[in-house]
């Protein structure tokens, strides 16, 4: 069809390109018949020019001012015809006031990246040193948006059924032991899909994949001499573009296709994708930082500024994005909608999400418009929204993050309480009872339910599981900050020796403690999250803040998989057990009553004596039964599950609650037992001779499952009763 509004009306000064007024929406650069529609907004710019580059070239081949008639409101928009957009990079020059006290920082000499850039060049291959003399470092590109999804659709797995696996695109396969063809890339993960399936997780949560600069604040380590990089990437250059350096095809500018292919293949295998997104700050830092985009386009709009025009720093990274400014709010919404619609992303985890609830002066708001908008947005309507419910400015909102029934939270209290209990701290049983039930003390209000709690013991931030049982304190010397960085409240215990040990007793206890931890995690109500590598006892040698370590400290060493096959098997079977038993995956909280007439309430508490848990401060023993008849609120008939936890250094007998006559307890897991006897395939649980009492070893977890007795046995018992 011929459209009259695709007819050029102007020619640029050099005569090479034909132009016409563009459409203000969508923002960014969009391919239209015959050309590219550019659209960028600035509340305060007085003029704007479009700079066009051939890929990688330091100087633009053409600079085209937006004519007055190409400005609509505060939006500059124009169509440029006849571009070879496969080989194109573009940026903007913006002129406007410079007055620091007023928060205005325009500099017409800077070339600025499009905040809506869908692909960004300049760091095409990870770690390849850039040309620092190039005045345009992070270069907007045109992105094809016609990926063939082959009927793919976001998974929409019920949140209570998720088992999240948190990983880092580069760290997952960069180590030579990964054996993949393209280590450290989206394609590398794709080659490990079979592994993820074997483990049994059904969701991967990727640490930031938006374009960032790995060279930001790069420097040699004072202890190792190795280059320290911005490895984790919690510092966005652009919000709409996948990191080119994470794609083996980034050097060809095909990172979007490679990323989408990974997502499509994960979906084909039943695995969801959650992105860790960082909307709390950008890579521009404070007033000493570079002009990448936002500072030079609309500083006063994008950033939270003090009354005298400096940057508030609630992120701990120099600046704070002005999330509840209506313009920035719209950008965040546009961004998330884009990732859902164009990348089929299943959910988001928001880094330092409490910042998203601060007003334009930095004060926490009661009903933050941004969070409300995201909760009710139709395009995001089925995707998971998970908040890291605190920020670096002291706001801690675990249990009270504004949720509208949609937001889940990283439950930091779960992590801390479980770690304390695990190391044998007294007085933890009350808290543990809450954590095991999906933290009703935090999430029962407003009916948020157990799934508001994302349960985790370890995450990228902090010790790995192996290190949690191997170090009492952090060892971050390699980060070059005199071990002052990283958290101090680790609640870890080294099992008797600090660091790597050759003592078989110490190592045996460590393995058991790791099994205890994952056993408790996977029988807890709420959504469990596992840190990638914990299943093979990956270590960072005590570094609990490896944000800058692009080396063996962070990279997953796959040779550990064979060495620690026993632990991997334990993880795998625990995950399978959770996936098999709906009783472990309630959406709502328990009612603490028997509403199914089964003789058991939905959850009942026990201890060394059945029906009589010892809640005293000195007690380190707790057991509970989840009644299978009450699974998923009584809508599913499942087996009952009994869990006994003994965190004492002595063995204790646990009296077992009696099941109805036609049922018996059988053993699924016992972390005190030797390898091979410690856990069974779900469905192949072993008989238990003594149905009265179970001797639970020191610092051990036992999981029993209730099942029907073989029919002959029941009949003969009934006869004998007669």
């Amino acid at each position, binding site marked *: 069809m011929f459209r009259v509004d695709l007819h050029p009306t102007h020619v640029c000064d050099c005569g090479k390109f034909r132009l016409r007024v563009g459409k203000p929406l969508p923002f960014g650069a969009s391919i239209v018949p015959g050309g590219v529609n550019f659209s960028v907004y600035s509340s305060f710019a007085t003029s704007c020019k479009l700079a066009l580059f051939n890929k990688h070239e330091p100087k633009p081949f053409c600079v085209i001012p937006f004519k007055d008639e190409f400005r609509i409101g505060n939006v500059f928009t124009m169509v440029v015809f006849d571009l070879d957009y496969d080989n194109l990079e573009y940026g903007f020059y913006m002129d406007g006031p410079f007055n620091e006290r007023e928060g205005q920082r325009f500099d017409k000499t800077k070339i600025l990246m499009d905040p809506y850039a869908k692909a960004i060049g300049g760091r095409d291959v990870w770690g390849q040193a850039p040309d620092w003399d190039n005045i345009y470092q992070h270069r907007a590109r045109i992105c094809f948006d016609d990926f063939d999804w082959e009927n793919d659709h976001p998974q929409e797995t019920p949140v209570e059924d998720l088992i999240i696996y948190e990983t880092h695109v580069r760290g997952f396969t960069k180590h030579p032991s990964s054996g993949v063809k393209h280590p450290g890339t989206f*394609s590398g993960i794709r080659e490990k899909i079979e592994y993820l399936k074997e483990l049994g997780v059904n969701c991967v949560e990727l640490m930031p994949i938006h374009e960032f600069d790995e060279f930001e604040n790069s420097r040699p380590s004072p202890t190792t001499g190795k280059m320290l990089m911005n490895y984790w990437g919690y510092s966005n250059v652009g919000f709409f573009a996948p990191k080119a350096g994470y794609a083996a095809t980034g050097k060809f500018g095909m990172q979007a296709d*490679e990323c989408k292919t990974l997502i499509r293949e994960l979906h084909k295998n039943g695995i969801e994708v959650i992105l860790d997104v960082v909307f709390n700050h950008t890579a521009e830092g404070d007033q000493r930082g570079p002009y990448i985009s936002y500072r030079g386009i609309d500083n006063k709009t994008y950033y939270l500024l003090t009354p005298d025009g400096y940057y508030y720093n609630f992120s701990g990274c120099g600046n704070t994005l002005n999330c509840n400014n209506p313009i920035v709010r719209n950008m965040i919404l546009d961004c998330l909608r884009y990732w859902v619609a164009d990348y089929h992303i299943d959910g988001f985890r928001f880094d330092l999400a409490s910042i998203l609830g601060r007003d334009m002066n930095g004060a926490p708001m009661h009903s933050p418009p941004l969070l409300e908008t995201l909760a009710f947005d139709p395009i995001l309507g089925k995707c998971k929204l998970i908040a890291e419910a605190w920020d670096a400015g002291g706001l801690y909102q675990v249990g009270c993050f504004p949720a509208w029934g949609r937001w889940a939270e990283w439950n930091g209290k779960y992590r801390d309480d479980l770690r304390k209990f695990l190391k044998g701290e007294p007085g933890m049983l009350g808290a543990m009872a809450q954590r095991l039930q999906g933290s009703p003390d935090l999430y029962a209000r407003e009916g948020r339910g157990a799934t508001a709690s994302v349960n985790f013991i370890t995450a990228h931030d902090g010790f790995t599981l192996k290190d949690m049982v191997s170090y009492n304190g952090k060892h971050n010397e390699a980060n070059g900050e005199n071990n002052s960085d990283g958290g101090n409240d680790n609640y870890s215990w080294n099992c008797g020796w600090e660091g790597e040990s050759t003592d078989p007793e110490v190592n045996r206890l460590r393995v058991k403690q790791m099994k205890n931890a994952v056993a408790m995690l996977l029988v807890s109500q709420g959504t469990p999250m596992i840190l990638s590598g914990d299943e093979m006892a990956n270590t960072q040698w005590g570094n609990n803040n490896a944000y800058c370590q692009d080396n063996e400290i962070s990279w997953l060493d796959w040779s550990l998989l064979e060495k620690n096959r026993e632990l991997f098997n334990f993880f795998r079977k625990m995950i399978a057990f959770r996936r098999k038993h709906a009783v472990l995956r309630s959406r709502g909280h328990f009612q603490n009553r028997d509403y199914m007439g089964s003789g058991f309430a939905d959850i009942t508490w026990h201890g060394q004596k059945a029906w009589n848990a010892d809640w005293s401060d000195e007690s380190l023993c707790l057991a509970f039964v989840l009644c299978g008849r009450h699974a998923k609120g009584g809508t599913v008939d499942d087996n009952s599950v009994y869990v006994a936890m003994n965190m004492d250094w002595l063995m204790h007998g646990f009296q077992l609650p009696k099941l109805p006559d036609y049922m018996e307890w059988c053993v699924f897991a016992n972390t005190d037992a030797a390898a091979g006897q410690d856990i069974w395939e779900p469905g192949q649980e072993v008989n238990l001779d003594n149905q009265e009492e179970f001797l639970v070893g020191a610092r051990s977890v036992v999981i029993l499952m209730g099942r029907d007795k073989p029919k002959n046995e029941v009949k003969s018992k009934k006869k004998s009763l007669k």
Partner: protein
Amino acid sequence: MEIKTSTQNGATIIELSGSLDGNTVNEAQEKILPLLSANNFSLVLDLKSCGYISSAGLRLLLMAAKQLSTQGGVLLLSGLSAEIKDVMEMTGFDNFFKTFDNVAQALKAIGKE
């Protein structure tokens, strides 16, 4: 870029030499599209002398394959370099094509040897 067309046992063979990128994709499109609508149910695209295919180039190939398949035809690719093959695999384009080491194998596969 150079495009040569020939027929062999009733199959059309298009040989692309040089780079298929933003600079050349329009020209290639103009030459290839008419061939897709002239009852060429078996079309072999020989890329043995093609050193580079950009994102736009891969999209042209995909579009051609889809257009041909709606008419019941099939687009066969032959002579891909290892690197191009690898890129196609990583970016998900490989799902849509049958690829062969050379033209003879492609023709054999469709019974036109």
